[in-house]
């Protein structure tokens, strides 16, 4: 290798995509300077002055940053104006503690409480508190701190970085953020995404040494003191990312994709309500797949009707007139849920999962159907069942749903039966597609390929065989699309194939005119269709 030995590489989690190549800049929490404490009155006055000064500084930062950053900083100002919080600190000074010690210990208690919280959102807020804590401590110690000077394109490396520190950095020359801890849902991550600053979090332990850094926000990697070869590969990735991003974003803003004179609907898949925060999501023609398993995750019980209704309603409100397809619980298989799925199945992928499970647990299914029936009156809702094998299952689900709608209406609750469709992922369903009286079909190509090819998709040893472009898979997709066309029923595809530019030409040739992809893939797929339609190759 030309440029010497390859430097170490670290992997974290993506918080903001993009690339940075520059000097590594370590930013550590301010060294603990000492300060001489005065009398009780002097200490109380010192804290009052420090709070006022901090409040002014934050207000200035908010004013110059504007927008989302200003709203984030408002929380810090509100904390400084919280009399309950501040009074407790003055009381602690009254007991003889120096101002900085009293301030710090109270804020540390709050931070510990946030960190102990179960949800990632509250945990992420602890860095806002740490930000405020350090600002006031610095003022009290008289080292109010110069704004960080970051060399152009520098990669800032810290344990965590508070939002106000981020805003003090001049990012106009580019650069990136590599955090050893941190969270993709932190305020600083939101700011980084808004500014287009690449950011990787949870990198773990990184040696203090290192002069040059390569930060890849897409691959979530940090390489230190790279060899010439590493730099060459990195720059190539950066360049191709830049090119495709620039042209894709321009295409994204155009009204609709079309191919051979036909409109191609591009919808998005979402895992949870927050996925709609993606800046590209607004350009989608609707939501092709809203998964609902997130409602089952991270809790001890099953979600009640109201919790579910609120989540569905939030998505329908976001979508306005656009269609929203919500898939009922797809638990089981590789997605076990305590208290819901069956334990000890020898072959869970061929077991009681998807609609099979919901029909076996009508008590749980009924709660979801009630929430969906109520949501149906709030927007353009479609509901689809996963893992359907026979038409009887669809009809059993429809009957349950219709009974629930009738009961709700009898109780004077606004509800209606939405359009009902099925996922086409069991080969039998694809082969007998005309037996289903569904309002629409959505092809789940991941499971369909797994079942047709008899390859466990989680088994890496089978990767070469697990080819979604296998003629057998394409045959089933084409049959389904063909049936839809003749029966006047819409057919979309929401698996990974839809978001893979190499698969798109085959899908269009199979007759599909609706694809549903992750929001982050929307621009690239629209660009791919655009190129195909102007006669180009996918590249």
């Amino acid at each position, binding site marked *: 290798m030309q440029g010497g030995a390859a430097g170490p590489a670290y992997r974290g989690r993506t918080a903001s995509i993009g690339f940075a190549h520059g000097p590594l800049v370590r930013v550590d929490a301010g060294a603990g300077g000492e300060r001489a404490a005065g009398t009780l009155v002097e200490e109380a006055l010192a804290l009052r002055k420090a709070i006022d000064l901090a409040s002014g500084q934050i207000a200035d930062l908010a004013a110059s940053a504007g927008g989302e950053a200003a*709203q984030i900083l408002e*929380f810090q100002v509100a904390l400084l*104006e*919280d*009399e309950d*919080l501040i009074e407790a600190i003055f009381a602690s000074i009254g007991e003889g503690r120096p101002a900085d010690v009293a301030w710090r210990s109270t804020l540390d208690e709050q931070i510990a409480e*946030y960190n102990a919280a179960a949800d990632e*959102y509250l945990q992420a807020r602890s860095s806002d508190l740490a930000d405020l804590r350090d600002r006031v401590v610095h003022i009290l110690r008289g080292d109010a701190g110069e704004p960080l000077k970051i060399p152009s394109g520098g990669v800032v490396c810290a344990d965590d970085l508070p939002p106000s520190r981020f805003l003090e950095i001049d990012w106009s020359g580019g650069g990136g953020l590599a955090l050893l801890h941190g969270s993709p849902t932190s305020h600083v991550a939101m700011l980084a995404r808004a500014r287009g600053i690449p950011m990787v979090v949870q990198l773990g332990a990184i040696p203090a040494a290192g002069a040059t850094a390569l930060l890849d926000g897409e691959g979530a990697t940090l390489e230190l003191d790279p060899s010439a070869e590493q730099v060459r590969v990195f720059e190539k990735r950066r360049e191709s990312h830049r090119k495709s991003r620039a042209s894709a974003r321009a295409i994204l803003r155009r009204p609709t994709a079309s191919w051979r004179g036909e409109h191609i609907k591009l919808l998005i898949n979402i895992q949870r309500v927050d996925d709609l925060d993606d800046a590209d999501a607004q350009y989608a023609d609707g939501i092709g797949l809203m998964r609902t398993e997130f409602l089952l995750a991270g809790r001890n019980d099953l979600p009640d009707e*109201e919790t579910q209704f*609120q989540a569905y309603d939030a998505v329908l409100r976001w979508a306005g007139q656009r269609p929203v397809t919500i898939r009922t619980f797809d638990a089981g298989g590789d997605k076990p849920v305590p208290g819901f799925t069956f334990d000890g199945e020898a072959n869970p992928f061929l077991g009681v999962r998807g609609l099979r499970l919901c029909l076996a647990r009508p008590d749980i299914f009924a709660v979801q159907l009630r929430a969906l029936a109520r949501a149906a009156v709030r927007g353009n809702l479609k509901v689809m069942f996963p893992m359907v094998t026979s038409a009887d299952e669809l009809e059993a689900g429809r009957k349950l749903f219709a009974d629930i709608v009738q009961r709700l209406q009898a109780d004077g609750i606004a509800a209606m039966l939405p359009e009902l469709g099925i996922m086409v992922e069991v080969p039998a369903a694809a082969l007998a597609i005309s037996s289903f009286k569904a309002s629409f079909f959505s092809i789940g190509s991941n499971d369909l390929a797994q079942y047709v090819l008899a390859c466990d998709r989680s088994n890496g040893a089978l990767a070469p065989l697990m080819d979604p472009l296998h003629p057998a898979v394409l045959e089933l997709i084409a049959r389904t699309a063909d049936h839809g066309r003749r029966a006047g029923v819409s057919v979309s595809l929401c698996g990974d194939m839809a978001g893979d530019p190499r698969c798109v030409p085959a899908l269009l040739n199979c007759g599909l005119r609706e694809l549903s992809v992750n929001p982050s893939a929307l621009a690239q797929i629209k660009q791919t269709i655009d190129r195909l339609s102007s006669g180009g190759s996918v590249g």
Partner: protein
Amino acid sequence: MLDKADGQIFTGNVRLVHAVGMHARPAVKLTKLAKKFQAQISVRVAGAPEWINAKSVAKIMAMRAAHGSTIEIKASGSDAEAAVAALVDLVASDFPDGAA
């Protein structure tokens, strides 16, 4: 209900419709609005043992009211009735921008 010192206590209930629960932005809006009133205002998640000062953003955040939970509000003082009505409206209308 009568309170000897301040007269009547007003109460209200409202469901938290905000998608992520009582997080930073709603908490700031709620406390800002509460501070516009003279009344002593307390809130709690329905059934919680302790009432919380509605003017303390730190305590409102620590309450960790989840999306879909019901918030109980009580207030006493000269403008208590208006305070309860305003806070119920803020939460019910999902903390619109420009409010408070």
